């Protein structure tokens, strides 16, 4: 056992300074296109390149709907006038009509994660939250095995037909107050998969959503940001 203790001590502290300070390392976030001013024809061409209608041409501006962006990079690579790109990751929002937890949950929330048809990347990013780099325990976030003790329901995936009932049951099994966090493009808009006869167009079609975290997949820091928002700390 001692070799493991020594190894752990030698590794040192890897934890990200976020949210106290900004995280500067490379590769922590894929970034997003940002709303850009372009002449109308260019704007229309750019909007036409987007396969999920995340880009919308409004006059001489290309507006970005983050909930639909699937990181296909078509507006960046191979485009004549590429979109402006930004590496930030704090793009979570509170859905209009949604409510976050606030006091007395600010300092500690328990999260139940449900995979409702996810591709695997969003779930893997959620798993990284427990690794020494992100260490969500230091922020008071814990994953629980049962919805009975959960405050936040974190859902990934467009909600496939087979997972509608289990998701509904999980939501019903959580005691109030509860907060639903939809993570990833699929959970917000169905991504590239929905809507179809088996895949829905997002979690909002099944249970009421409070916090939305866009990305495909959103990096762990973005999910942390979303959790902080759900706790009422941001």
């Amino acid at each position, binding site marked *: 056992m001692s070799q493991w203790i020594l190894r752990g001590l030698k590794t040192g502290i890897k934890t990200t300074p976020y949210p106290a300070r900004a995280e500067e390392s490379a590769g922590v976030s894929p970034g997003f296109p940002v709303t850009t001013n372009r002449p109308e024809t260019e704007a229309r061409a750019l909007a036409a390149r987007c396969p999920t209608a995340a880009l919308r041409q409004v006059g001489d501006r290309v507006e970005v709907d983050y909930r639909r962006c699937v990181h296909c990079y078509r507006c960046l690579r191979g485009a004549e006038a590429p979109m402006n790109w930004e590496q930030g990751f704090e793009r979570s929002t509170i859905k209009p009509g949604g409510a976050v937890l606030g006091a007395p949950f600010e300092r500690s929330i328990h999260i139940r994660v449900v995979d409702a048809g996810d591709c695997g990347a969003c779930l893997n990013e959620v798993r990284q939250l427990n690794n020494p780099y992100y260490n969500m325990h230091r922020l008071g976030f814990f994953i629980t095995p049962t*919805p*009975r003790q959960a405050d936040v329901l974190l859902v990934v995936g467009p909600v496939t037909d087979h*997972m509608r*009932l*289990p998701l509904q*049951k*999980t939501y*019903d*099994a959580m005691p*109030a107050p509860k907060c639903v966090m939809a993570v990833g493009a699929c959970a917000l808009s169905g991504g590239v998969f929905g809507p179809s006869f088996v895949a829905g167009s997002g979690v909002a079609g099944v249970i009421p959503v409070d916090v939305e975290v866009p990305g495909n997949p959103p990096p762990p820091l973005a999910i942390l940001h979303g959790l902080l928002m759900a706790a009422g700390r941001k």
Partner: protein
Amino acid sequence: MEIGTLLAVFCLLCGAGVVLALLVSDRRNPELLAWVGSAASLVLMLAAGQALFTDAAFHAELWTVPGVGALVVSIDRLSALFLIVTALVYFPVSIFTVGYMRRYAGHYSLRAFSVMYLGLFFSIALILAAGDVLLFLLAWEGMAILSYLLVNYEHEEERHARAGYRMLAMGEGGTLASAVALLLLAAAAGALDFASLKQSAGGLGDAQRWMVFLLSFFGFGVKAGLVPFNSWLPRAHPVAPGNVSAILSGVILNLGIYGIARVNMDILAPSSAVPGLIVLAVGAVSAFLGILYATTENDLKAMLAHSSIENMGIVTAGLGAGLVFIASAHPALAAIAFLAALYHMTNHSVYKALLFLGAAVVDSRAGTRDLDRLGGLIHRLPWTAFFFLVGALSISALPPFNGFASEWLTLQALLRSVELSSTAVKLVFVLSGAALALTAALAATCFVKAFAMGFLGMSRSRQAAAASETGRSMLAPMGILAVLCLLLGVLPTYVIPAIDRAVVPIAQASATEALVPPFFAASPEHSRLPAEFAAEFHDLGAQVGEDFAPGRGLVVLHRGGESNPVVFAMSTTYGFVMLAALLAVTAGLVRWLTRKRRVTRNTRWDGGVRRLLPEMTYTATGFSNPVRVVFNAVLRPRTVEDTRETVAEHFRTAIRRIRHDVHVMDRYVSAPATAAVIWIARTAARMHHGRINAYVAYVLLTLAAFLLVAAAF
């Protein structure tokens, strides 16, 4: 009223009941039986209560049989105790009969049932009141036949006939052995009444003592359900009607204990410690095997039958310890041990009757006794579930119920073996104590399984899902027994002096002196307590309640001897009061703190499966499987089938595993014995080949043999 008058009233009631049962219509018979049965029980309780609590004893000679002797009826304190227990069980069971026997209306004769039931009551009372060997054996045979008829009441089922027959056959074997024992004693005394037997018992030689002990212990042990002759019990209980099972376990098993007690404690006190050790060891082994098979059994009534074996084992172990203490000249310890045994016997009758009545209700309402097919009954039969829970808590020896008090006393009595001198004796005590402790743990497992699988969770069969609660006439007796369980557990300091009155004549010492110190100032013996002792316990609060509670005190105390100055104290009374208070306060606090909160009810969390089916929940077999695995060497299940079916070499379509349990005593005792008897019978049957010439030759040979014998003498 005088005891004699009350007994006469009792006989009249039974006789009138029998006559009326024949006259009244079949349909009204259960009601009649309830009235007569309960009245007779009350009368008997009054009579026996007088015999136990006052100094009055009853002794009467009925007619004299020419050439043999007088038929004596005598009720001393030991008989009185057993009579009270009998009446305590008969009272609620009689009331229960009203509702329960409806299922047999039109199918079997209810008149016959009433007649047999009252007859059985009468014969049991006669056994306990018998004062001489002849009356005892006559009443015993009557009891054996009537109980056989009652167990075999549903005589049209083949399986029932076999079970009843086995009970009768083994019972008769035991009766034969005990009769020989009693007759040996009578031969030494030259008379048949128990008083003479007792007087001349001192003059018996060693060999005779051993014969009497072995024959009476194992003979009466058959009736009590002790190892190795208990194979009739688990077969007889499931086939008997529910109320008969309650009588069987709550009353008839006690007769075996009575026989052992009467012969080995009252008439023939042991001279060496070895008989007592044998009794102790047999008791411990019975207890362990009984509960082991109960834990792995799925039929509710068979499980309760095995549990009866266990409890009788505990009682026997207490008796054995007492016998050893008497032989080692420690009468005070013997008194404690006998008291523990008789207390446990009383408790067992009460809670076992309760459990059997509960099982009878479950059987009649849910249509099945198989724990793997019950479930969810707590919603359908809430009161039955509650009473069954009280019974289960009692039998698992959990405070504040009665099982706890008597098992605690039994184990404490065994602990006193440190004061004995012989190491071998102490070793047997230690091993038996360990076995009893293991038994207690397994008993808790067994009854958690019984209650949880039977009443909690989801219904595993349609019948169980459609069950509905039973009527008040069947709930009331269970309620009475449940209240008795609580009272016997919460008021040990009143029960102990009562039972002690039966123990004192036998052990020549008082257990009350040792166990219930007079902490109350109002009690007359209070001044005899040493001052520092009383002061120490005064600080602990042992005098609480002295203003309104009568008696010596509310604390049961067990002190070691001079070589072993430890003190064990327990008070289920205080414990119960504290527990009730704590529960009430907590409930009130929770209610007040959450008065403004909203309570939402939701279905169980099942992992999101679309349908949670009963076959996805734990079964009774699954629950008890770890016990099965640990004790595999004892159980040694026979694998009947263990196959795998595959289609096209790789589709696994079925895995079949069927294992069959054979009771270890059946494997080593009953089956070989039966095989031997059948072999002997077959060999002897070779004589019956039908050839006239050979038969004539037999006659000739026999004549010649007699002539030779006559010539020799």
